[in-house]
C-alpha cells in the first residue's frame, strides 16, 4: 500500500516527462503542420477550436474532427497514439459525464431502458457534447504536438500576451521538468530505503514532507535563479528574439484555415 502511493506518484511523473519528450520529438518531425509558421498555426488552430465550440450541428463537428485526423496524418503523427492518449481518454471522460443527460434532460421519450425513459433531447445533447469535445481536443492537441514549446510561446505575442508573461511561461515550463525530476528522485530515494509498510497517516506525512522539501528547494532555487539573472545583466525587462518569417506556404495555410473556419461557421449555425 505504501509503495503503491509512491509508485503511483512516480508513474505520474514518468508519464508527464514521457509526454514532454513525445511532444518535443513530434514537433521536430517533417510534416504538414510542423512546416508552418507558429503564428499562423496558433491563430488558425485556435480559430478552428473556437469554431468547434460554436458549432451546433453534428456533421460540422464530425467534419472538423475529420479535418483534425487529416492534419494529423499529414503531420506524421501516429493515429494509434492519438487514439490512446486523446480520443479514448476524452471519450471516456465525456461519455461518463454525458450519460446521465440521456435520462435527466426533459423532452420527448425516444427509447425506454429498463422502464426509464431516454429523451431525444438527452441523446442529442450527449452526442453534441461528445462530438464537440473530441473535435476541440483533437485540434488543440495537434497544435501542441506539432509546435516546439518555445515557438508556441513566442507565437503568443501575436495574441498580445505580455512579454513578461511569455517569459514566465517559458521559465515555468523549464522548471516543471526540473522539479518533476527532483520530486521523482526524492520519491525513488525514499522508496529504495523502505522495507516496511506505512499506514495512511505516515503516507500522508511522507507526501506532505516531500512537498515541503520541494517547496524549500523551489524558493531557494528562485533566489539563485534571480541572482544568476542579475549577474547576467537582468534589470527587470524582458526581450524576446523573434525570427519568424512568413513564407508562401504560410499564406496558403492561412487561406485554408480561413476557408475551413468560414465554411464550418456558416454550416454549423
Amino acid at each position, binding site marked *: 500500500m505504501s509503495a503503491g502511493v509512491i509508485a*503511483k*506518484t512516480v508513474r*505520474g511523473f514518468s508519464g508527464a516527462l514521457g509526454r514532454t519528450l513525445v*511532444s518535443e520529438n513530434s514537433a521536430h518531425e517533417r510534416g504538414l503542420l510542423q512546416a508552418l509558421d507558429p503564428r499562423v498555426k496558433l491563430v488558425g488552430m*485556435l480559430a478552428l477550436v*473556437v469554431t*468547434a*465550440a460554436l458549432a*451546433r450541428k453534428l456533421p460540422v463537428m464530425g467534419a472538423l474532427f475529420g479535418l483534425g485526423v487529416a492534419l494529423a496524418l499529414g503531420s506524421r503523427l501516429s493515429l494509434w497514439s492519438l487514439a490512446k492518449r486523446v480520443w479514448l481518454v476524452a471519450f471516456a471522460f*465525456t461519455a461518463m459525464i454525458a450519460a446521465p*443527460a440521456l435520462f*435527466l*434532460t*426533459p423532452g420527448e421519450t425516444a427509447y425506454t431502458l429498463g422502464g426509464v425513459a431516454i429523451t431525444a*433531447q*438527452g441523446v442529442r*445533447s*450527449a452526442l*453534441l*457534447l461528445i462530438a*464537440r*469535445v473530441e*473535435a*476541440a*481536443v483533437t485540434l*488543440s492537441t495537434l497544435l*501542441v504536438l506539432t509546435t516546439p514549446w518555445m515557438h508556441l510561446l513566442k507565437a503568443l505575442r501575436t495574441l498580445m500576451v505580455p512579454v*513578461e*508573461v511569455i*517569459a*514566465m*511561461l517559458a521559465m*515555468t*515550463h523549464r522548471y*516543471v521538468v526540473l*522539479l*518533476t525530476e527532483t*520530486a521523482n528522485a526524492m520519491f525513488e530515494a525514499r522508496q529504495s530505503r523502505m522495507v516496511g509498510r506505512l499506514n*495512511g497517516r505516515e*503516507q*500522508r*506525512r511522507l*507526501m*506532505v*514532507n*516531500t*512537498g*515541503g*522539501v*520541494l*517547496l*524549500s528547494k*523551489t*524558493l531557494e532555487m*528562485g*533566489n539563485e*535563479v*534571480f541572482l544568476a*539573472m*542579475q549577474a547576467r545583466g537582468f534589470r527587470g525587462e524582458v526581450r524576446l528574439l523573434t525570427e519568424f518569417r512568413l513564407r508562401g506556404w504560410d499564406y496558403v495555410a492561412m487561406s485554408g484555415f480561413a476557408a475551413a473556419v468560414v465554411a464550418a461557421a456558416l454550416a454549423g449555425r
Partner: protein
Amino acid sequence: MHIPDGYLSPSTCAVMYAASSGCWWTALRRTRRKLFGRTLPLLSLFAAFSFVTMMFNLPLPGGTTGHAVGVGIAAIVLGPWASLLAISLALTIQALFFGDGGITTLGANCFNMAIAGSFAAWGIYRLVSMGAAADSRRRVVAAALAGYGAINFSALLAAIEFGIQPMLFHDATGAPLYAPYSLRVAIPAMMAGHLTIAGAAEAVMSAGLFSYLRRNEPELVGVTGLAEKRQGLRGLWGALALVLLLTPLGIVASGAAWGEWAPKDFGNSAARAQIAAASGNAAAPAAAPSGLARLANLWTAPLPDYAPHFVKSAGFGYLLSAMFGVGVILAVAWAAGRWMGKAEQPAKHGDGQ
C-alpha cells in the same frame, strides 16, 4: 475541476477571459511593484511547484487518494495577487502542454481556481488566524480551512458555470448545446466530490506544507506572505464593506428562491405559477405539504425577510440585516479567537518549563 474545451459556450468563455484578464493585469502591476525583478523567477518557480504537487497522490482517510491544487499554500506564502498569477501560469502550462483543461476554457479555469481560489484562501486564512500567535495551532487550522474553502469555492463557481449552460444555450428542440445539467444537478454533483475528497486533499496539503514551512522556513509564514507583509486587514474590511453595500441587490431578483416557499405560497396563484416555472413546469401541490405546514412556524426569525418591522425601506432593511449578521459573525469569531488564545497559553508555559 479543469473544465475541458466544449463544455462551456464561447460567450461564457469570453466573459470569463475578460474577467480573468482584468485580474491578471492588476496582479502583474501589483507584484511587479512589490517584488521588482524577482517576480519572474519566483512566480515561475512557484507555478512549477504547484504543477508538480498537483501530481502527488495524497492518501486520504477512508483509503482513497486525491490531488491538491496548492492554491491554499500559494495564497498564504505569496499573497493573493502573486498567488493568482502563479496558479494561472501552472494552469496555462497544464492546458497548453498536457491537455488538462481546455484552451477556450482557460479563462474560466484560471478564474475559478487561481483568482477566486487565491482570494478565498487568503481571506479565510487571514480571518481564522486573526490575532493568533506565530506558533499557534490555530494558524495550521486556518491553513487547512483556507485550502478546503478555496477549492470548494472554486468548485462552486465551476458548477454555476456548468449549470447556467442549459438555461442559456439550447437548440429549438430544447436539447442543451453545452454542459447539459441545470444548477440543481450540477451543484450537488460537483460539490459532492469537492466537499469530501478534493477538499480533504487540499486541506491536508495546505496544513501540512504550512506546518513544514513554519518549522523550517518560518519567515515565509510567520507573517502574512512575501507580497502582503504588514499590509493589515484594510483590504479585507474594504471588501466586506463593499459586499455589505451591495446586499440590497437581492431586491432586484424576482420571485421566491427555489425551495424557500412559505406554506401560504401554495394557496396563492401567482406564487404557485412561480413555483411551477422554477420546477420544470411541475405543478405545485394544491395545499402546503402537512410536514411543511407543521414545522414552518417552529422558529420565528427576529428579522423575517431581511427587514425589521420598523423599517419601511426594503433596501435599508437589507443593509441593516447584513450589518447585523456580519456583526454577529465577527463577535463569535472574536470570542472564539479569545478563547482559543487563552487555551493555548498554559501549553506554552508548560513547554518552556
